[in-house]
């Protein structure tokens, strides 16, 4: 319990510090001349040009990573002599890392060379987080703009995100992790990947069991440190937002809404995992559900990690998600199904949350019969259409892809049947569509039999890959378009009838809207899987 209180206190303390630093980086106050010279010719872009740069660079990074994975047999730093993975697995993995998802159908230590891990995946861990951060900053600029349509330059923002924010934080964090016992050698370059895996809310582990492996997460202390790394930047961005729009209370309001949902989630998982599961009950075992958990983390350290990693779109895990109790497993799913707005991914969490803010403002406007506005800007039909696309699009994607996965082509990916099998599929497409990357890991798209060659399940790899790409780029384009549209609007002075978006009332409304959208979309699906298991002692 103390661990949870300490964690919340520390996160709250870090938020304004790191958030302020990030704001200063992107306003150009913190600048190294040699670095700034790299992007000298980059002129400000409107939202369409900014979006084009995001898409073109993502396409290039996609091609490069796919190439690296497909030529693995030729790499240096391949001590165990791995061949190249099948094309469909390489596609899924590439889509996964370019979209900051880090969904992994493969087991790192038995599939990928150290060159692929470093030059392929680690690079994408930085870049996909950098893209998310850059887009978030561009969106904030659009919301804050007093006049004119420029959102900044994508390449300049990306370089700043990587050089001033992600790289220095990763170097320091990796050093701390290495001191705590995470290996960093030619054969096991774990620490360097671990740091950015968490800071960038990526989540793709060096090892198959991710942060449950003693080499990725050696102690209770390293576990706490890793938890801080995951939420540090997503939480800080609320403060960056408040500063850049010139009203810090706006940022704290978002933080309060996120933190409230977060604390409720932690409490539920902590209580749920403190009791034996039906299977333990049947075997006569009492005590906490330690199946699939590490002793050094216990129920508190695991519950906190489960909630942190799915609140952020990180997806790193320090225990088996599939072994969570019914209700314990419901929480991570539900958190992802909010659209990853409870802190969320680096950048993407804030931008999706801003769309929920627009939705909340719109609903309030309908209720009192006034034109909705945010930060003094009128929210029109165009913005609301885009907001609906950005907030409802991904939940819709989850439902459609989950349904598709219940066809005969999808069933082979499940390791079990009944409600658990359904939960595996629902979790898989919830996680991929929301770019989280954690999994009920019995669900597979890549089979490595003890004897005989490994092969990919083409259907799961393709459906998952396209789901991740849509889940990343549809909301990203929608929110950039909204920012572009808002950037042209004049700011009207606040009047007596202006709805305050930095008040406690608004925080409550915002939470209500988020919960309502998620509940209305997903309750029937959740009932079929985790709720059934959580409400009964029945074995299947």
């Amino acid at each position, binding site marked *: 319990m103390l661990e949870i209180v300490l964690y919340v206190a520390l996160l709250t303390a870090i938020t304004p510090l790191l958030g302020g630093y990030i704001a200063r980086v992107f306003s150009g106050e913190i600048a190294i001349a040699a670095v700034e010279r790299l992007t000298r010719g980059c002129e400000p872009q409107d939202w369409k040009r900014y979006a084009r*740069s995001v898409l073109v*660079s993502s396409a*290039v*990074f996609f091609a*490069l990573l796919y190439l690296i994975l497909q030529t693995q047999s030729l790499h240096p730093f391949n001590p165990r002599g791995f061949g190249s993975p099948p094309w469909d697995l390489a596609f899924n993995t590439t889509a996964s890392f370019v979209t900051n998802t880090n969904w992994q159908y493969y*087991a790192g*230590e038995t599939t990928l060379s150290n060159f692929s891990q*470093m*030059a392929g995946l*680690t*690079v994408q861990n*930085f870049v996909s987080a950098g893209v998310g951060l850059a887009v978030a900053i561009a969106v904030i600029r659009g919301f804050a703009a007093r006049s004119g349509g420029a959102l900044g330059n994508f*390449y300049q923002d990306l*370089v700043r995100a*990587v050089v001033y924010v992600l*790289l220095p934080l990763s170097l320091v964090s*990796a050093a701390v992790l*290495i001191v705590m016992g995470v*290996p*960093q*050698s030619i*054969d*096991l370059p774990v620490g*360097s990947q671990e740091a950015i895996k968490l800071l960038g809310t990526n989540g793709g582990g060096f*090892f*198959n*069991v991710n942060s*449950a492996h*003693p*080499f990725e997460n*050696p102690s*209770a*202390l390293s576990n706490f440190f890793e938890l801080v790394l995951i939420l540090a930047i997503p939480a800080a961005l609320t403060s960056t937002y408040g500063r850049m729009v010139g009203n810090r209370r706006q940022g704290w309001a978002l933080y309060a809404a996120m933190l409230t949902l977060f604390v409720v989630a932690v409490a539920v998982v902590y209580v749920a995992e403190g009791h034996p599961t*039906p*299977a*333990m009950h049947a*075997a*006569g*075992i009492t005590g906490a559900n*330690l*199946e*699939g*958990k*590490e*002793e*050094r983390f216990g129920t508190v350290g695991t519950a906190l990690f489960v909630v942190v990693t799915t609140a952020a779109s990180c997806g790193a895990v*320090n225990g*088996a998600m599939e*072994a*969570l109790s019914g209700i314990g*497993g419901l929480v991570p799913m539900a958190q992802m199904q909010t659209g990853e707005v409870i802190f969320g991914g680096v950048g993407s969490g804030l931008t999706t949350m801003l769309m929920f803010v627009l939705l909340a403002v719109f609903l309030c406007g309908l209720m009192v019969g006034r034109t909705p506005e945010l930060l003094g800007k009128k929210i029109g039909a165009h913005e609301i259409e885009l907001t609906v696309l950005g907030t409802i699009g991904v939940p819709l994607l989850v439902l459609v892809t989950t349904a598709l996965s219940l066809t005969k082509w999808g069933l082979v990916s499940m390791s*079990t049947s*009944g*409600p*658990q099998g359904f939960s595996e599929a629902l979790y898989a497409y919830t996680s991929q569509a929301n770019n989280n990357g954690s999994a*009920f*890991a*019995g669900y597979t798209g890549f089979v490595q039999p003890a004897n005989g060659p490994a092969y990919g399940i083409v259907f799961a790899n393709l459906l998952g890959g396209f789901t991740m790409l849509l889940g990343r780029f549809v909301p990203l384009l929608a929110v950039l378009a909204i920012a572009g549209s808002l950037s042209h609007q004049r700011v009207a002075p606040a009047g007596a009838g202006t709805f305050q978006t930095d008040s406690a009332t608004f925080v409550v409304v915002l939470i209500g809207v988020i919960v309502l959208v998620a509940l209305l979309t997903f309750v029937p699906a959740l009932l079929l899987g985790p709720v059934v*298991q959580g409400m009964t002692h029945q*074995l299947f």
Partner: protein
Amino acid sequence: MRELRRAVIAALALTLVLGLAYPLALTGAAQLVLPHRADGQASLIGRDYSKDLSLFQSRPSVTGYAPDATFFDNQGPNQKALAAQLRGYVRAYLQRERPYTPGLRAQDIPSDAVTTSASGVDPDISVANARIQAHRVAARRHLPLARVLALIDAHRSAFGSFVNVNELNQALR
């Protein structure tokens, strides 16, 4: 075209800096400052001690305690297969410890002792589990029980009620 050129240059430059310079520089520094620690400490990885019952035993593992081919057990909370597996672990634990702790029942077993860890190479067991095992270890090694219990207390983690089995067994030898 200019757009594409810019993206390609960015991709190659970032790959060099983030994919090679960053991890290799860290590796160089780590190997220089913490040569053994940075190779990965053996005491962090749980091992199979079942060949020698005079030692403390690790938690059950479905991966044969392999540190380089890890996977989760991935059994759901309401699965019959998991219940059967757990019953097997309970039976094995009782068979192993009951001769030294008469009257030991399933509900007395700390749950960590009969559930699989996440990594399959969990190096730790709960203090309660170790205290039950202490009876067997003391009898097999002809040591006073009090001494074995004192050893557990001495190795207890500062962060919770658990002990590292590797270190405990090292101290016994």
